[in-house]
C-alpha cells in the first residue's frame, strides 16, 4: 500500500476551473453578477448576497439584519405573505435564507426552464418589501422563539459570553441573532430604514450557477433589476495587499470567564484574535484548521481525544471574516475530566506550534484536504454558489486567483512565526462552562 504521498496534485486543474470559470458583470444599476455554467443537473441555483449581517447594528439593535431576513418573506408590492413559498412549490423550486456576521443571503433552486422566477422574487424583495405591522409583531415572536431555542444549548451561551469578553468593541461582539432585549425593543421604523439603507443593488452580489446560458442570464438580470447607476459602490474589490502589516493582536484578551449553567459536561473555549480573510496570516490559519482538527489523523484528535481521552469533542476553528475576528480552540470534557486539564492539553497543542517547526509533509496533507473539500463542494450547485459568493463578498473578485498561490507559500517557518505572534497568551480569552447540577438560578461570574 502507498504511504499516503503523491507527486502531482490531482485536484489542481479542476479546482481552478471550478473557481475561475465564471463570468463577472455589473449591471447598470450597480448589481454585481457572477454566472457559472454547469450542466450537471437540469437545474439552476440563484443566490443573492447582501453586505449586511450581524456586524451591522445601529446602537442597541443587535439582530436587525437577521430579523430583516425573516421579514422580506412577509409581503412585497408584488407578493403577499406566503406567496414566495407557494410560488416555489408550484414551480418545483425551493428557497432558504441565512444571516451571518457579514452577510445576509437568499438561496433559490429551480429547474432550468424557470429559474428566472428567482430573479423576479429577489428583485421584488430587494426594493418592494412592505413589512406589514401585524406581520412584524408575529415574526418578532418567531425570532424570539429561535433565540430561546439557541439559549437551550449551553454551548451557544458560552460562545456568546466568550465573544463579548474577547472583543467587546468589535461590530461582531453581539453575534447574529441579537439579544432578547434588543429584539423586544426593535421597531418597524428601524427595520424599514435599515432595509432601505442596505438592500440596494450596489450592496449586493448575485450568483447564478447551473444549466444556463451566460448571455441570456445576464440579459434577464438587467431586465429584472433595472435602474440607473448607483451613487457609489459599497462592495470592496481589493484584497488586502500581500505586503499588509503583520497582524498584531491587541495587547489584552478578555481574561477568564466562568459560566454556570444547567449542563452535563464542562466546556472549555479559548479565543485568540485573528486577522480578516485575505490577510497573509489567514492562509497559515486555514492550514492550521486542517492540521489541528480535520479528521482522525489531526493533532487535536490524536492527542486530546484519542491518546489522552480528555474530551468528547475538541477542535480548532478559524473562519475568515471581513474584519479581524476570533479563532478558537475548544472542547467538551469527558465525564470525570477536570476542565483545567483539558484547557492545558488544548493550549499544549497551540504552544507546540510556537515551539516546533511543522514538517512539510504535514502541511502538504492539510493542503490536499483544502483542495479536496473545494472539489467536493464543486459537486453541488448550491455549494458552488456559496463558495463563489462568500469568497467574492469577503475577499473581492481577485481573491480566488491568489488563493492557491498563497496557500502554497505556507511553510514551517511561516507557521512558527505566525503562531508566536498570534497565539500570544496575553491576548487570549478563556471561557469555561461549569455544569450547574443544583436547582439554583443561572449565573455568570467574571474574574478576568
Amino acid at each position: 500500500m502507498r504511504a499516503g504521498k503523491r507527486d502531482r496534485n490531482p485536484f489542481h486543474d479542476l479546482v481552478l476551473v471550478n473557481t475561475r470559470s465564471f463570468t463577472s458583470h455589473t449591471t447598470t444599476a450597480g448589481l454585481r453578477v457572477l454566472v457559472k455554467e454547469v450542466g450537471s443537473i437540469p437545474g439552476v441555483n440563484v443566490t443573492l448576497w447582501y453586505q449586511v449581517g450581524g456586524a451591522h447594528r445601529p446602537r442597541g439593535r443587535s439582530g436587525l439584519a437577521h430579523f430583516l431576513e425573516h421579514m422580506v418573506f412577509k409581503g412585497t408590492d408584488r407578493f403577499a405573505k406566503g406567496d414566495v413559498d407557494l410560488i416555489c412549490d408550484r414551480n418545483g423550486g425551493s428557497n432558504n435564507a441565512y444571516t451571518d456576521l457579514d452577510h445576509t443571503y437568499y438561496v433559490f433552486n429551480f429547474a432550468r426552464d424557470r429559474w428566472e422566477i428567482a430573479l423576479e422574487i429577489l428583485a421584488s424583495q430587494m426594493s418592494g418589501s412592505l413589512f406589514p405591522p401585524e406581520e412584524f409583531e408575529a415574526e418578532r415572536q418567531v425570532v424570539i422563539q429561535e433565540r430561546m431555542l439557541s439559549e437551550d444549548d449551553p454551548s451557544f451561551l458560552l460562545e456568546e459570553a466568550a465573544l463579548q469578553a474577547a472583543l467587546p468593541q468589535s461590530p461582531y461582539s453581539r453575534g447574529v441573532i441579537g439579544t432578547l432585549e434588543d429584539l423586544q425593543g426593535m421597531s418597524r421604523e428601524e427595520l424599514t430604514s435599515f432595509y432601505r439603507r442596505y438592500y440596494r443593488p450596489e450592496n449586493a452580489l448575485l450568483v447564478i450557477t447551473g444549466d444556463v446560458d451566460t448571455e441570456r442570464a445576464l440579459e434577464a438580470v438587467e431586465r429584472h433589476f433595472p435602474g440607473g447607476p448607483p451613487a457609489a459602490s459599497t462592495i470592496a474589490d481589493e484584497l488586502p495587499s500581500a505586503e499588509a502589516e503583520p497582524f498584531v493582536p491587541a495587547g489584552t484578551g478578555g481574561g477568564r470567564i466562568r459560566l454556570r449553567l444547567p449542563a452535563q459536561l464542562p466546556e472549555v473555549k479559548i479565543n485568540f484574535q485573528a486577522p480578516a480573510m485575505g490577510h497573509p496570516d489567514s492562509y497559515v490559519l486555514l492550514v492550521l484548521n486542517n492540521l489541528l482538527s480535520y479528521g482522525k489523523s489531526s493533532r487535536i484528535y490524536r492527542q486530546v481525544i484519542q491518546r489522552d481521552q480528555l474530551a468528547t469533542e475538541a477542535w480548532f476553528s478559524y473562519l475568515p471574516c471581513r474584519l479581524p475576528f476570533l479563532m478558537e480552540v475548544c472542547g467538551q470534557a469527558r465525564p470525570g475530566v477536570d476542565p483545567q486539564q483539558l484547557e492545558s492539553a488544548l493550549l499544549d497543542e497551540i504552544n507546540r506550534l510556537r515551539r516546533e517547526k511543522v514538517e512539510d509533509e504535514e502541511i502538504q496533507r492539510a493542503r490536499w484536504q483544502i483542495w479536496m473539500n473545494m472539489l467536493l463542494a464543486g459537486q453541488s450547485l448550491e455549494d458552488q454558489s456559496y463558495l463563489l459568493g462568500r469568497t467574492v463578498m469577503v475577499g473581492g473578485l481577485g481573491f480566488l486567483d491568489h488563493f492557491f498561490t498563497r496557500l502554497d507559500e505556507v511553510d514551517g517557518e511561516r507557521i512558527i512565526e505566525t503562531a508566536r505572534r498570534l497565539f500570544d497568551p496575553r491576548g487570549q480569552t478563556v471561557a469555561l462552562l461549569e455544569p450547574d447540577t443544583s436547582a439554583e438560578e443561572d449565573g455568570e461570574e467574571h474574574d478576568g
Partner: protein
Amino acid sequence: MVDRDPGDGTPARPKFDPGPVARHVLPNGLCLIVRENHSHPLVSVEAVVRAGSYLDEEGTAGLAALSGRLLDSGAGGLTAEQISWEVESLGGMMMTHGGYLLSGISLSMSSDDLETALDLPARMLIEPDNDPGEFEKRRQRVLADIVADRDDPRSVALKRFHELTFAGHPRHRPVEGYEETLRALTPDHVRRFYCDRYSPQATCLVVSGDVDTSAVLARVTSLFGHWERGNALDPPSPPDPASLAGRGLVAERIPMRKEQVNIYLGHPGIRRNDPDFYPLKVMDKILGQGFTSRLNSRLRDDMGLAYSTFGSITSSAGVDPGAFLCYIGTSPEHEAEAVEGILTEIRRIREEPVPPEEVDAARRYLTGNYIFSLETNQDIGGYLLDAELNGLPLDHVQHYVEKVEQVDSARILEAAAAHLDPDNLVLVAAGGDPKLGFTPSR
C-alpha cells in the same frame, strides 16, 4: 392564492438520469453496485453490512453500533492511526458508522486513489483487529456521548419516544445502547459479532464516481472474492412493531431546565415499499414538510408558536417501518395550544379531502425539486443503496415524476386514514411546566 404566478403555469418536471449503473453479485454473495460519473475526478465508496442495532440483544444493546465505529481502529496489518493517515494524507474523508439497519464505512477520495478507497474497506470488513485498547477507548467515548446527549432536549425526547412507541421491538433501544449494557460489553462480544454478522452475503458496496466499471469489478473481486461466508448468519428481516391501537394517548413529560419545551408525537410508520408510499409522500409535504406545510403555516406563521415544527411518515420509511413523527419546540405557556394544533392538522388531513390546488402544489414541488438531492456522488450512492436494500429497481427514480403525478386527493385521504391514527399515539415532552398534564381534546 397567488394572483400572478410568475411561472408559465406548467409543472416543472426535470429529468434525472443516474447514467450507467452496473450491479454484480460475487459468488460469495457480496453485492457490488457501480455508477460512473466522470464530471469530477472523485469517487465515493459506501461499504455497508446489514449488521445494525436491530440485531442487538437487550443485554448487549450498543454492540452493533460500537462494532461499526470500531471498524477503523486497526485492520489487516494497519493500526487505527495508519488507516486515518492513509485516507487523510490524500485529502480523503472517511467515516465508520453503526446505525439501526446498517454498519459500515463511507469514503470520499480523489479517483486517482481508487485503489486505496477499495483496499481499506476490504481490510476493515474482512480482517478487523478488535484491539482491546482501542475497544476501551471507543467504549469510553460512546459512554461520554451518552452523557453529553442528556443536555439536548430533542435527543432526550426522541429517545423516550422510541422507548414508548416501539416497546418490545428492536427500535425501542437507542442505537448506541445504554450505559449499563455498554459497560457489560467485552472485546469478545465484538469479535463474535464480526464473526456472526460481518459476511459477504450481508455486504453491499456502492462505488460512485470517476471510475471504470470493469476495473472496479476486477479490483473488488480480487479484494473481496476470497472472503468466505463461513458460519455467518444470513441477516434476518427486522420484525413488525406492535400497533398502538386501543392504547389511546400515551403521554410523558421529562423535566428539563430549558427555556423551551420540545415535543415529539407519533406512532409506528410504514415500510419504504408500502404501496401507499407516494400518496403519503405528497401528504407529508402538505402536512408537515417545508415552509408551506400546514403545520408550519398554522403553528409558525399564523400563531407564532414556534421557530421549528414538522411532521412526516415517509422520511423514516425503510426496510422495516419507521415512525410517523411530528415535532414542535415552543415556549411552555403555549404547549397545550401547540399540541392541539398538531392534532387538529392530523385529524383534518385524514378526514377532509385536501383541496386539489394544494395537492397540485405539493406534487409540483416534488416533481421539480428532487434533482437537487441527487447531485453528488454521495447523494447518488445513497439513492442506489436505498434502492438495493428496499428491493426497488436501481433506476426507479426515472419513474418518480409519474408516480408522484398519479397521486390525487382521494388517494391521500385513503392513505392518511389508513396510516395516521391521532387517537392512539405517543407524546413525549422534554421540558415545560412539570405541573401540567396533557389533556388534548377533540
